[in-house]
């Protein structure tokens, strides 16, 4: 059985990161283009772990397929009836910032962030398989032009991504912490960034 780090298990992540960083090098040296199925399986398993975050309502709600975001843990259509707009910040006259201010405001049950916005349509995840999301997230044409280093920075440092772990009252947090999520993504990248079947 492969043991895969959990986004909720930081110590294990650190341990495995170091082991895996090393073993990935050894594997690559020993097997060249065709890593053993164990290594692929492990990489896929790492992405499945990351998928617990990627496919969490905190993330999917703002990575919708179509123009309208969803909201809440039930992922119902967003009310008010808002759309993405040209730059993800809402249409002219109704920017996201009309309701979503600099910080969560629990008294009104309205979440907030200084740059509240939707992911571009190219980054739509909602309703897709984890394998499809995996292929998509590695594709610079569909991930905002990011290479792997930039992608890892985005997931582990971007503060709007980080909102998923401090979403305010009444919303479940994404599993683990942003740092743990970043670490799992890094481990996945270093293990060859293999994807589950689409």
């Amino acid at each position: 059985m492969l043991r895969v780090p959990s986004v909720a298990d930081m110590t294990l992540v650190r341990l495995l990161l170091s082991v895996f960083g090393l073993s990935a090098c050894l594997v690559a040296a020993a097997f060249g283009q065709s890593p053993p199925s164990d290594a692929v399986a492990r990489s896929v398993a790492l992405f499945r772990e990351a998928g617990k975050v990627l496919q969490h309502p905190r993330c999917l709600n703002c990575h919708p397929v179509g123009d309208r975001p969803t909201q809440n843990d039930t992922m119902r259509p967003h009310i008010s009836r808002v759309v993405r707009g040209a730059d993800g910040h809402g249409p002219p006259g109704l920017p996201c910032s009309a309701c979503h201010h600099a910080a969560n405001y629990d008294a009104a049950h309205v979440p907030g962030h200084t740059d509240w916005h939707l992911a571009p349509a190219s980054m739509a995840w909602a309703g897709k398989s984890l394998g499809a999301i995996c292929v998509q997230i590695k594709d610079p044409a569909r991930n905002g032009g990011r290479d792997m280093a930039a992608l890892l920075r985005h997931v582990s440092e971007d503060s709007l991504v980080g909102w998923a772990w401090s979403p305010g009252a009444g919303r479940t947090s994404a599993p683990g912490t942003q740092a743990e999520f970043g670490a799992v993504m890094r481990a996945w990248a270093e293990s060859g960034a293999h994807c589950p079947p689409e």
Partner: protein
Amino acid sequence: MATVTLRINGANRSLEVDGDTPLLWALRDHLKLTGTKFGCGEAYCGACTVFVDGNPVRSCSLPVSQVGNGAITTIEGISGPEAAAVQQAWIARDVPQCGYCQSGQIMSAIALLKAIRKPTDRGIDLAMGGNLCRCATYVRIRAAIHDAARALGG
């Protein structure tokens, strides 16, 4: 409680409120600017829309502690060509029925016309989608925004 100074309709106004108070209640209860309406308290209906530094904002979902130095404009303080055009169009089209949501509708219409000079029906629907009207005056809201756009030379 703390003393908070807000810049509202061009004047500084000081009030004693908890920082977590929604701007809406500061406006209505403390400053008696009751043109801005309470509808839902959770940013679903748009009745409480004001401008902060010219941008439309739901005052029910903004605590006074987050306003900072932002210049607030309420329905009582609107001015400029877009506001004049929207007011004239609203009167000419007899838009309001019960009237409760109309302050918010007018604020959003002004915000739209500042953002786009000549909105399409679709553009109007997208921008006004956050302003509910139980009387369903939507037909006239659309028509009045088109009128105002024409008056502005859009």
